[in-house]
């Protein structure tokens, strides 16, 4: 057992702290703190139990296969009963203490609030995340997908909704998960204490590509965030060269346009992610691939190989059209 614990320590040391235990926000931090309490209590209990067990069994006493004496010594029995009672009482105390700690952390988790906070609405789809930045002026709203930018040090309200099945939003360095359930609006508050890109993932089994339903939370300074948001508010730029113009035609006349939106063009379908600023994103296919032209080409040509069962069909394009499309999509900064 101690070997196992040792290996745990080694793993912790070797791989660095796992995502859930290297918090980047106050809530994940509180949970990580609670984890430490539970973890060390567990280590103590496990070690104690196993030690006692080994001691009890391995006492060098020669056993004999005779009928056991049923009339035990009352004194010894009472001592045993007292021991069991004491251990039980201790268990109860520890459990109550852990319970109290839990409840305190629950309270603390619920305490994060801010008036007029940035509100991000997230809809879970099979198998991607639709993201919308709320704004009192409807035309200032921003829709994007699979990548959330938040300002560092500010509490952000995330409103969740499921469009098909149950999903669960989980960004371990920021907070625990919250389910997206059809028919039940849920929400959570998050706050990033330090800048960085934090990976998240759908945590509730949602079908074929549950494994590849990832997202990225990018925490950046208020200035950088505002600049990003302002960029997102602009419609897609007009293509500047012939190649990109041809790419736009491929997009608008082919299968792309009946599933995707590019603000600034007639493409306004909502089946797949909004691609208005595709080139500005870090990843493709809900966090599955890095956003490079090569991967994008592979994704367009055969998404079913990369994510079998995904709703995007394999698009048969000839080389020139594909290059043009890539040029156009690449221009959507």
């Amino acid at each position, binding site marked *: 057992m101690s070997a196992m614990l040792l290996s745990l320590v080694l793993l912790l040391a070797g791989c660095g702290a796992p995502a859930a235990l290297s918090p980047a926000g106050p809530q994940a931090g509180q949970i990580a703190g609670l984890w430490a309490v539970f973890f060390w209590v567990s280590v103590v209990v496990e070690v104690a139990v196993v030690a006692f067990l080994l001691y009890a069994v391995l006492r060098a006493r020669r056993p004999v296969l005779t009928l056991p004496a049923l009339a035990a010594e009352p004194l010894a029995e009472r001592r045993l009963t007292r021991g069991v009672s004491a251990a039980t009482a201790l268990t109860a105390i520890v459990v109550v203490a852990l319970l109290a700690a839990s409840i305190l952390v629950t309270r603390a988790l619920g305490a994060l609030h801010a008036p007029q906070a940035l509100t991000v609405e997230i809809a879970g789809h099979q198998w991607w995340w639709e993201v919308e930045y709320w704004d009192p*002026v*409807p*035309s*200032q*709203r*921003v*829709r994007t997908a699979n990548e959330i930018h938040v300002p560092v040090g500010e509490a952000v309200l995330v409103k969740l*909704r499921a*469009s098909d099945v149950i999903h669960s939003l989980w960004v371990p360095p920021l907070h625990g998960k919250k389910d997206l359930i*059809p*028919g039940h609006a849920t929400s959570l508050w998050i706050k990033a204490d330090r800048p960085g890109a934090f990976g998240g993932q759908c945590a509730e089994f949602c079908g074929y590509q549950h494994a590849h339903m990832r997202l990225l939370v990018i925490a950046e300074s208020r200035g950088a965030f505002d600049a990003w948001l302002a960029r997102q*508010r602009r*419609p897609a730029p007009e293509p500047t060269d012939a190649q990109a113009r041809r790419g736009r035609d491929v997009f608008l006349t082919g299968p792309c*346009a*009946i*599933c995707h*939106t590019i*603000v*600034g063009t*007639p493409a*306004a*379908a*909502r*089946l797949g992610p909004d691609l208005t600023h595709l080139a500005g994103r870090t990843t493709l296919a809900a966090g599955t691939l890095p956003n490079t032209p090569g991967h994008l080409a592979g994704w367009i040509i055969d998404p079913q190989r990369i994510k079998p069962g995904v709703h995007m069909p394999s698009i048969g394009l000839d080389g020139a059209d594909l290059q043009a499309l890539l040029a156009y999509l690449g221009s959507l900064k």
Partner: protein
Amino acid sequence: MTAPRPATLAVLGSLLALLAAAASRRTLDAALADDGQWVRPAKDLAATRYSSLDQVTAANVKTLRLAWSFDLGVERGEEAAPLVVGDTMYVVTPFPNVLYAFDLTRPGTVRWKYEPTPATEAQGVACCDVVTRGAAYADGLVVFNTLDAHTVAVDARSGREQWKTRLGEIARGETMTMAPLIVGDKVLVGNSGGEMGVRGWLTALDLHSGRLAWRAYSTGPDRDVLIGPGFKPFYTFDQGRDLGVTSWPPEAWKIGGGTVWGWLSYDPELDLVYYGTANPGPWNAEQRPGDNKWTATIFARRPATGEAVWAYQVSPHDLYDYDGVNELVLLDLDLAGRRRKVAVRPDRNGYVYVLDRATGEVLSATPFGHVTTTKGVDLTSGRLTYVDAKKPELGKVVRGVCPAAPGAKDWQPSSWSPRTGLLYIPHQNLCMDVEGVEASYIAGTPYVGSATRMYAGPGGHRGLLTAWDPVNARAAWRITERFPVWSGTLATGGDVVFYGTMDRAFKAVHARTGEPLWRFETVSGIIGQPITYRGPDGRQYVAVLSGVGGWAGAIVSAGLDARDASAALGFAHAMRDLPGATPKGGRLYVFALP
């Protein structure tokens, strides 16, 4: 049919009506000057649909009989009003929009026939049957719109095409079904297709050349909506810059509806043309947060330039497809002791609005149907107050939404009798269950995002003819009908009100009491607009098209399957017994006294 009203009430009603009639002398003058023709679907520019012809009276109407009839050869919803100019009657059919000219001197004979051969694909983007609401006449030209979004002017004598202007693109879902209004040398036309993600507009064409004079969009930046410095909306929520952009999610105004497929009216004195814009798109309101200017809005514009003078958004952020296209009947009424120039409008959302037509101020808004979706209009802010519990939700069915999507009253126009001071509102009593669903915009395909199923409202009857007293803001009498009263009404100087029912009856009732006087069984359900005219022989005739269809009658005209409650956007469910009540048809009926 409702029980006859107590006599006292009738007396009181007529007295009040007489008072009102006396007050609106101007209208009365116009009526007295009636020439017995019918040159535009709404009869006059004020859209009263009142003819002072009085040969047919409440006393003799029961002897009314068929003078002649004509099979139009198109068995879709006949929503048009025939026109009578001189000794010719003009009838335009649903798609393929054939224009007939009948020689009234020789009843039942066709003088000429004009076939515009619109693109057949247009049928695939016409939301609610392939109807047209008629033509308009001016200056020797019969002008009408074809389903494939063209406006055509035809020489009234020869039937030769004078000009044909393409105004919209059917590939983007644009069609045209409304009847033009001709003001001076301008032909005013608007587009249809609010269910296809079309951007609505009203366009003025030069009457003689067909060239585009101006186009006023219903959504988008102020310069597109023709909002300039002269724009003075009465209420603060209609004031601001570029509301047609900022009250929409990014770029959604480009596919946001607000089409202009209903009725226009014109006040020569104020030189303002009035009309309403249709619903925002998609129906699913969660996809278009904001007020969605200028959909479901009443506009007052200068016909010469198109410049907007005032606007009033009747249903801001419309939740239920409450198009704002219904007629605005221009009347001068004594309200609270003051004579006012008003526009009376029975709206789809269930209220009769009485507006000051010079300013756009709402003087009163009174429910005339069963309304559960809203709590009324706040007369200080001008805003319609929605009921939270009835707001459609994404993925959840909200029940008991009354009125349903076609509203308490749809396009079917009312008529006004200056003699009785009553507005005869043909309308329906429907409720619906509605569920919001994600809508994806694919040009040329429907952009609705809503699952609906409709059914009869309280009482079980689906149709009503309400005689509305706009001065006292109350109903004088009502007649209930099994099916929605989807036809227009006609009021005459003989105190007779004509209307048709979807179960094939053409009816005459007493204008003061609603007492049924006469009925005639036609070949098909009636959803057209009855008219009356003085024939070349000096006799008064009454004409109407019979042919069930439209949104309400699509179950018959398009042969829908009512086992699916969502057929025809849920309307078929409420009309599932219609196929048993009427076959398809397309026939012109003309009646006269013997």
